[in-house]
């Protein structure tokens, strides 16, 4: 199955009203470069392409829908149309279109689909049935490359590569099927009913099953909420990065202050601890203490406190005669017992001697001047630290003040997204945590357990007990066998697919990367692992990473039998000129249709190489019709067939205009 993007049209949205048309060919690879200055709406268009292909805009909240309104000239409605050609082996090719209609009055979107010209436009998102499996989010993100996609595929802390494979080959459906089998089995065999007469065990099982459903719903909701959040985060992250790089001078200063502040803080912490340690010796604190303790020492020397073991007095009281040979009568014994209380024991005498020794020792060490110096030094360090901290804070305040209101909102949104995503991912982690004992969990109430794997084990255990009692063990084992077979098959299929796609990647890589560049895909796991020979590396150069990502995407598409175009945002921004030239040479070999959204600074090295090595290239430049862009309008070619003008936008397909175009505006978010 071959899918070629024919173009799109936008009206009444925050990007200019324009119509872009491509002329893909089945005979040869076609490449289209769409150049826009920053702030024209590149990210908007890519997001709309994704939304058109996945139907995801139906789930957008009104606040998000309203973000697409044209703020310069707001209108009540807007439209995005996406057109592409679908060719099956056994059928003629046909045009398919998705249309998203925005209602900015109520904040909603609706879809229409053209799937059959004889039927015309129908309400709803209704793609051709053969396309549906490939229009899930995880599939579309394989061929619509946004932002950090290249890095994400290689990132060992993410599972983008695996998720893409599972999505493309329907393996993620198998998990849903297994859940469905479990649910149906429960309905038939284990008594979802809660009528009287059912055993306590069945009611217990029922409670756990209901709780599992609750947890699975919660998991689904979190995953569903996370998808758009992650997408918004990627966009926001890019924008923040652009913003921060635009403030690089301020950032360098900020980093310098932070380093200095950290050094001061480390020294201050050490000085604080030293000062506190010095206070542990009371003789350091006050000369009154020193004086009193020395008085005690002198008195202890003078008094020569009596001491002897209490055993001596006990033995004396039990003896017939005293040591002076007097007879021990009741009166003597009583007097000894009374007076011996004033005697210190040997151990107490040792402590007293210790006290005397320590008083002398620590008095010699104590020096009020030294202690004062310690605290004077601490004070000085606190002053210095506060001074640096104030300078740093003032600098940050200045940075924030210099940022425009829009940037402030951008940063706030970014920080909010980070917190929200972390919170939801944390909750998902808890739900999927396998640690713990299901036997312990089984003794408690279902709602005390929020871990799906543990709940599954409890349910399995209860099912087995009930099955034994009800003599339905055979059915239970059959159900479990079926689920195991499905899961095992899925696991084996995934493993085989990863190996196959890894091999395909390496075949393509050989065609893309320059000679002498030693790089291969070592393994496709949750992420793509690269290296060469015995060496594994977490990432390559910018050019290598891009080559790997494109190889992976096109390998996946080929293997799945659904050849979509590659639509890439900033295809070469991270590459040096040499890498851009190499990519330009090989781009035609990568896929049947390539659409790259670029800015003027990406042309260097890339476009010339592309022009030399590919035949079917379309050069499109698009910009807003505003006063700041007057200079572009004055440079438009005289051949009006290459210029399309709307009320608020201009599209030019002239190559010379494309080559000479330079963005003169300051950074503005898309």
């Amino acid at each position, binding site marked *: 199955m071959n899918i070629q993007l024919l173009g799109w049209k936008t009206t009444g949205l925050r990007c200019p009203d324009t119509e872009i048309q491509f002329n893909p060919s089945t005979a040869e690879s076609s490449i289209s470069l769409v150049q826009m200055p920053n702030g024209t709406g590149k990210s908007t268009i890519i997001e709309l392409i994704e939304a058109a292909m996945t139907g995801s805009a139906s789930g957008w909240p009104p606040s998000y829908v309203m973000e697409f309104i044209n703020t310069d000239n707001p209108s009540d409605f807007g439209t995005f149309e996406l057109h592409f050609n679908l060719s099956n082996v056994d059928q003629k090719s046909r045009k398919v279109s998705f249309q998203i209609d925005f209602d900015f009055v109520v904040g909603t979107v609706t879809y229409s689909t053209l799937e059959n010209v004889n039927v015309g436009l129908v309400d709803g998102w209704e793609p051709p049935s053969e396309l549906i499996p490939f229009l899930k989010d995880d599939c579309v993100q394989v061929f619509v490359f946004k932002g950090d996609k290249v890095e994400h595929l290689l990132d060992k802390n993410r599972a983008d590569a695996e998720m893409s494979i599972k999505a493309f080959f329907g393996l993620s459906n198998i998990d849903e099927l297994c859940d469905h089998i479990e649910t149906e089995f429960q309905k038939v065999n284990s008594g979802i009913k809660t009528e009287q007469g059912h055993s306590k065990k069945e009611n217990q099982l029922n409670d756990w099953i209901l709780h599992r459903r609750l947890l699975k719903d919660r998991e689904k909701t979190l995953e569903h909420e996370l998808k758009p959040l992650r997408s918004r985060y990627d966009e926001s992250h890019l924008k923040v990065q652009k913003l921060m790089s635009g403030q690089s001078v301020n950032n360098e200063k900020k980093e310098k202050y932070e380093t200095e502040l950290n050094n001061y803080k480390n020294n201050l*912490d050490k000085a604080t601890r030293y000062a*506190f340690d010095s*206070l542990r010796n009371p003789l350091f*604190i006050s000369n009154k203490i020193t004086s009193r*303790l020395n008085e005690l020492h002198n008195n202890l020397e003078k008094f020569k*406190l009596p001491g002897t073991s209490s055993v001596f007095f006990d033995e004396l009281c039990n003896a017939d005669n005293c040591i002076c040979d007097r007879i021990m009568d009741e009166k003597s014994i009583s007097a000894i017992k009374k007076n011996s209380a004033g005697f210190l024991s040997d151990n107490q005498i040792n*402590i007293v001697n210790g*006290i005397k020794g*320590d008083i002398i020792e620590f008095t010699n060490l104590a020096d009020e001047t030294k202690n004062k110096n310690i*605290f004077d030094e601490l004070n000085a360090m606190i002053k210095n630290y506060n001074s640096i901290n104030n300078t740093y804070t003032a600098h940050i305040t200045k940075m924030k003040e210099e940022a425009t209101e829009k940037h402030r909102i951008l940063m706030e949104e970014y920080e909010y997204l980070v917190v929200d995503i972390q919170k939801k991912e944390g909750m998902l982690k808890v739900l999927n945590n396998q640690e713990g004992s299901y036997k312990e969990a089984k003794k408690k109430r279902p709602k005390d357990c929020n871990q799906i794997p543990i709940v599954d084990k409890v349910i399995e255990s209860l099912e087995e007990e009930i099955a034994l009692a009800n003599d339905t063990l055979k059915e239970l084992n059959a159900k479990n066998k079926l689920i195991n077979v499905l899961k095992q098959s899925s696991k084996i299929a995934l493993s085989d697919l990863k190996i196959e796609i890894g091999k395909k990647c390496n075949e393509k890589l050989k065609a893309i990367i320059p000679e002498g560049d030693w790089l291969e895909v070592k393994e496709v796991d949750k992420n793509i692992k690269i290296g060469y020979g015995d060496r594994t590396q977490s990432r390559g150069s910018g050019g290598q990473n891009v080559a790997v990502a494109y190889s992976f995407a096109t390998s996946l598409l080929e293997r799945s039998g659904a050849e979509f175009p590659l639509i890439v945002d900033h295809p070469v921004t991270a590459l040096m000129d040499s890498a851009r030239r190499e990519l330009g040479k090989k781009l035609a070999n990568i896929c049947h249709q390539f659409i790259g959204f670029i800015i003027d600074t990406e042309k260097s090295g890339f476009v010339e190489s592309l022009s030399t090595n590919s035949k079917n290239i379309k050069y499109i430049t698009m910009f807003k019709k505003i006063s700041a862009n007057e200079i572009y309008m004055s440079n438009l070619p005289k051949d009006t067939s290459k210029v399309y003008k709307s009320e608020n936008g201009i599209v030019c397909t002239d190559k010379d205009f494309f080559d000479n175009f330079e963005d003169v505006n300051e950074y503005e978010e898309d």
Partner: protein
Amino acid sequence: MFKIHKDVKNWAKHLLKAKETPFDTQLDLYYLCFIVGIGLCKSPNYKSEHVVDIIPRYTQPFQNYREIYAALLIVSELRNASIEMTKELVSKKMTSILDTYDSTHLSDEAFGLMNQYAFGGFEAIRKELPNPPPNPHDFIKWYYDVMLPKCFTDDKW
């Protein structure tokens, strides 16, 4: 057992949790309160239900000074009683304060006295500083510059 005013943990939560804080345990704060208590007076408000257990022994940094702390307790008690040091009184005090079987050298009576001083010390500190600064260095500076000069004054010592 060393017992501390039950409000200390909450009052000093930022000091205890600060990164690189010199206050490794509540005993560190207990000691600072004890010194202030010794320098001023025992608290007349002391009630056992207002304190919580911390630890039954000194932590390592305090172990070196255990004899000094015992001696300080003795001179404070004698000072509070406003009596001169006589052989009998000192001997009696030593006997009641020192416990040779405890690593702290402190008897139950001694613990009780120390806890009362620490309780009173905290009340005095809190009165001067209802909300401590979150940074340990600012607190230590305040303690040395502001609180300690109020203690061990001629009228009290």
